[in-house]
């Protein structure tokens, strides 16, 4: 029902000349988070991540990502299986995401056949050495920040809202600007700033495609402007609504990857 009203709302707003008063920053960010992190009931994708240091040297990670929404609660499950680099093949990563509190994460280390639960700060810990934090990969909560709609403009030929978000609690950034597609609701660009208002990181959605009727960012880049490091992520074989079962997202399958989905 929520989706329906939202869709209706989008239809209306897309059809009418918009004034900023029509949507609050909060609502825009809420819609954007839903589209970016929750599209479809489930998702399966092959993800290639390139970590590029300032000298242009590259480390690659190749993984299968499985994602499942648990109803409308906002609870989510992620399963990540690493195919490459060869010496870490079989390493797998499980996330149970709860809105409003820190996620649970487990890792399986095949060389020592150990599953460990990782207790780490989502907001500042790097995801597999990339420029993305855990939070960037699995999403933050709309309540974590206060959002203000600054303006509407065009970005790369797309109509966008520009929203400023400031974290309510402690975070590694002081301010974030988001350029959110007014029709597709995906963030096309994000800029993070530190306390001196110096740019920290920049996210860009470099290629957006529609997959199973869902607008999906197929190529994205996160640049660390302070150390010159960047991470490029390519999504391939994106499928929504493939029928993932909740049981896959468990310690058993962490140790023994579900062959049906991980190939």
């Amino acid at each position, binding site marked *: 029902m929520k989706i329906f009203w939202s869709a209706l709302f989008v239809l209306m707003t897309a059809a009418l000349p918009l004034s900023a008063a029509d949507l609050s920053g909060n609502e825009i960010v809420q819609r954007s988070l839903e589209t970016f992190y929750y599209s479809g009931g489930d998702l399966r994708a092959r993800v290639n991540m390139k970590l590029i240091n300032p000298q242009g040297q590259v480390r690659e990670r190749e993984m299968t990502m499985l994602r499942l929404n648990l109803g409308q609660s906002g609870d989510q499950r992620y399963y990540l299986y690493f195919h490459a680099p060869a010496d870490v093949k079989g390493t797998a990563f499980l996330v149970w995401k709860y809105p409003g509190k820190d996620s649970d994460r487990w890792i399986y280390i095949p*060389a020592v056949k150990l599953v460990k639960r990782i207790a780490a*700060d989502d907001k500042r*810990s790097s995801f*597999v050495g990339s420029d993305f934090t855990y939070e960037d990969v699995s999403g933050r909560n709309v309540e974590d920040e206060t959002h203000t709609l600054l303006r509407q403009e065009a970005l790369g030929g797309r109509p966008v809202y520009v929203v400023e978000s400031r974290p309510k609690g402690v975070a590694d950034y002081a301010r974030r600007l988001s350029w959110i597609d007014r029709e597709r609701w995906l963030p096309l660009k994000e800029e993070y700033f530190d306390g001196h208002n110096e740019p920290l990181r920049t996210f860009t959605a470099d290629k957006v495609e529609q997959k199973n009727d869902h607008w999906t960012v197929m190529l994205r880049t996160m640049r660390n402007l302070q150390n010159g490091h960047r991470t490029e992520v390519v999504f391939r074989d994106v499928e929504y609504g493939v029928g993932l079962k909740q049981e896959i997202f468990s310690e058993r399958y962490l140790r023994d990857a579900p062959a049906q989905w991980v190939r």
Partner: protein
Amino acid sequence: MAAPFRKPLPHFFRPGRDSLDMQLRSLTQFSLARPRLIFALVLLITLAFLAQLPKIQTNTNPKNMLPPTSEVRVWNDSVDRTFALYEDTIVVGIVHPASVLNTATLEKVRDITAGILRIKGVAGRDVSSFTTIDNVTAAGPDLKVAPLVTKIPKNEAELQALRQHLFENPLFVDRIISRDEKTTAIYVPLEKGANGKEAADRIREILAGYQGEEQYYVAGDPVARDTFGAEMFKLMGIFSPIAGMIMFIVIYAMFRSLAPAATMMLVAMVAIIWTMGLGIGLGFPIHIMSSMAPVFLMAIATDSIHIFNEFSFRLRESKDKRTAIIETMAAVSRPVRYTALATAAGFAVLLFMQSVPVKVFGGLIVFGTLVLRLLSFSLIPAILTFVREEKIVQEEIVANRTLQHLGAWGARRPKTAVAISAVMIALALFGMSHIAVNNNMVAWFKPGSEIRNADAVINRALGGTSLGYVVVSTSEPEAIKQPQTLRYIEGLQRHLEQLPVVGKTSSVADYVKRINRVLHDDDPRFDTVPDEADTIAQYLFLFSMSAKPSDLDNVVDYPFQQANVWVQLKSWDAAAMASVIQSMQEYQRAYPANLELRPAGIAYFNFVWNHEVLWDMVKGFVLALAVVLLILIFNFRSLKWALVGYVPLLFTILIIYGAVGFAGKDFDMPISVLSCLSLGMAVDFSIHFISRLRQRLAETGVDAKHDLAALREALVWTAARPGKGIMRNAILFAAAFSVMLFAPLTPYITVGAFIVAMMLFSALFTLLYLPALIVLMRGWLFTTGVTK
């Protein structure tokens, strides 16, 4: 009796035969004829150079003593890039008399860290402190990744838990906690180009806000370096004028007249403005070396005291000012010209050095010296025409009796003099054998100074403030993850740690061992490098998922082909890194492997800099010795006289370096620079003495070879009259530079002491030993012209 002697040497003393002499003579006459034009010209040129001064740029970073293209800097920069390292890190030490592990101190550490993170220029993401450093711990099935202190412990149990975390993790001990737990540290890396002194000052401001039992110390290379740079400029600003004032007062006391004092200061100021204006106008930043140029030029300017000295005698003799000026210039032009040439040559040698700031310094002093001489023959005579005669010299004109006795003693007891000098030379050579070539920037600050204290305290308690690296390179990517490579690195660390100067080492092997232990429920038996490469790879992968990626980047390169071993040293001595390199090579020889080991880091830079620049200077010194000898030969048109004139110079240098050796003072950068200076200046006195002696002999027509009494008389005259100029020059020089003995930075004290000693010694040796040598060798020296 005079004629046969004079004949072979006519062009020496007859002005007009030497074209340069003639030019200078006509310059002097022109200046006497058109003094106002000379003033106007000098004023115009001075204004032109003055206009350049506001463009001043400073560069106080001693790193620039080697060009950015030098091998060591290119290599160090590439290591910094490969391992995402910071060039500069400030270390803040916090010491509590009992233990820093108490609630109040930890709260202060938290708040100070938060304050430091807000400082501009600080690389906040990589500041290491209790509240920012990542700690990976095992808690049952959980792997906990969090800053070491997230919540300040409030009770004994919580403090005990923190204590346990700290001391079970070898990555923390000797880094952020001392073994006696009285000291902790905050490591503050700086962004490229940030000013270390400014950041340190901000940090000190923050620290000043915290009262209590804790003591705070701010140390690290950037602090020492940039503080030194800032102090240096302050000192130059204060000491140059004070030295000038003292010289003014001393000259006034010597001549009881303002005119010579004011003239000499004016000439010195003009030369300084032209020289600094040239350097700045050409776009050279003012560096440690070139900042000393004004004081050096002021010293070199004192050579014109010979003009005033001679003038005071001539004026009394001829009573006509114009004649006295022309006669004075004729008498002193040759020695003054050649002393200028010798000084310029001594510094010109610096132009052949590798280091750009040294070249610039050498070039500027050469220019300044030539300007000074030009002014001696133009501006000084021009000024003298304007001064009423009675104002010029009011002192009683008497040749100095002490100097007469000094010269006479040397002339009468030449063998005793030579014997004493032989003993002194032997002692000096023994002392010189104890000289160690070394450089230590922290030692540039006085014992008891804040920077030196901070360094000592932190070095005593923790792993060390001086950082070197050993880069281990393998032949192919991924090879670092091989167990045998990590074990080799581990062995290297243990080997290096046997050196007393090495406080701590860390490497990727330490991280792997740490993860192995944490994954195995903190079982100490797993504090080892695993046997499988895949296990190591997966541990490092896990590490990159759980900590700041930069922690890993600092110790291993992107393709896992190179590893970086951190070596913390407890001393900034260049010799400390030398011992690390030696130990590294020992290990390589004992355990041959297909791995390349190469030193890097700021400690390595200091080591190379020490070697290259200092030895460069030593080479320059030897070169300058040869050039000065050539100039003497050219000046005297005689190898024999050149060799004799060389003796007081050599003697002075031997005695001073002997004293340096006995005092246990390292041969460091300031001393090496002074060596070149000393050559060009100490030889001045010989040139004056011998030129004027031969002039006197020619004028009086003495047969020096056979008439010993007449030779002695001429020697006594020389010691007393030009000798007075020499002594005045030396005293003036020494007086001005003695100010530096009160400087708060040791290189300035060294420079001051060295110059004071050098001038007094070389003047003394000139007046004492030259007569002795000339008397002893008269048969050899005065062969020409006595064939009849």
